[in-house]
């Protein structure tokens, strides 16, 4: 299945957001996630299923003003 991960089109076997986080080796507690523009809490990642063309954002703290 093809999805967008942080703006890049990728092929993935992940069925849920949690699978995707693990597949890409993100530190689970150090990132925040959104799918198709909606926030997905950490506790809901396991039940958040991904579908073709999903837009996934995985964000972390960054310098800001």
């Amino acid at each position, binding site marked *: 299945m093809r999805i967008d991960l*942080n703006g890049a089109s990728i092929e993935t076997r992940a069925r849920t957001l949690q699978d995707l986080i693990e597949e890409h080796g993100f530190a689970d507690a*150090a990132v*925040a996630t*959104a799918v198709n523009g*909606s926030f997905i809490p950490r506790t809901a990642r396991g039940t958040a299923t991904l579908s073709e063309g999903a837009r996934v954002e995985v*964000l972390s703290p960054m310098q*800001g003003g």
Partner: protein
Amino acid sequence: MFYGTDLKSRLMLGTAQYPSPQVLREAIAASGAEVITVSLRREGSEGDAFREILRQSGCRILPNTAGCHSVREAVTTAQMARELFGTSWIKLEVIGHADTLQPDPFALVEAARILTEDGFDVFPYTTEDLIVGERLIEAGCRVLMPWGAPIGSGQGLRHRDALRTMRAHFPDVPLVIDAGIGAPSQAMAAMEMGFDAVLLNTAVAKALDPVGMARAFGAAVEAGRTAHDAGLMPCRDMATASTPVFGMAELA
């Protein structure tokens, strides 16, 4: 005072654009700031080192929604920030204009309402417009952050009279001058006018010596606050001699 939190330092410092992580760390310490702003961006390789700086600083984190142009973007970003930083504080930016980075007041008020209803403590980046300020208060904001000048411009308090009016109009609302400050004298002027705090970033990060400039801003903000508390003398149009005339010799 800021959502129930009393701060000793009235300077809030941004964490972007420093020449190195080490300089950022030292600048935070030198400024005396107890609140630092951070953002959320796509996970890269430098995340760990930055997280460590945040932890070591001992500062309270004020995440921002910088770069957001719509209510939805800002609300989603705020929700992500709350989970990541474990704080209900959010510096709400909804940008309305690409060149001036002026906030979009309509989207700002709507996002503020959604977020306060969701339990956030919203610090809205706004203009000096009184009606927008009132709408933000009605939406549940307990702090307002009017701009001094466009973000990163270093122009200081561009609409000083309007800011003075805003200070008078909201006597009991903590007001933070956010953005546009370029020099410690400008930050001090804001504090002398009775603003509760100043939030800045570029003026420190882009100084020749950011650590030295952080120290200068910390001192300026403290001096301005002390001066405000001490009560400034009123301005006069004409001179009035400070040395007494009584006892003056006749030498003419």
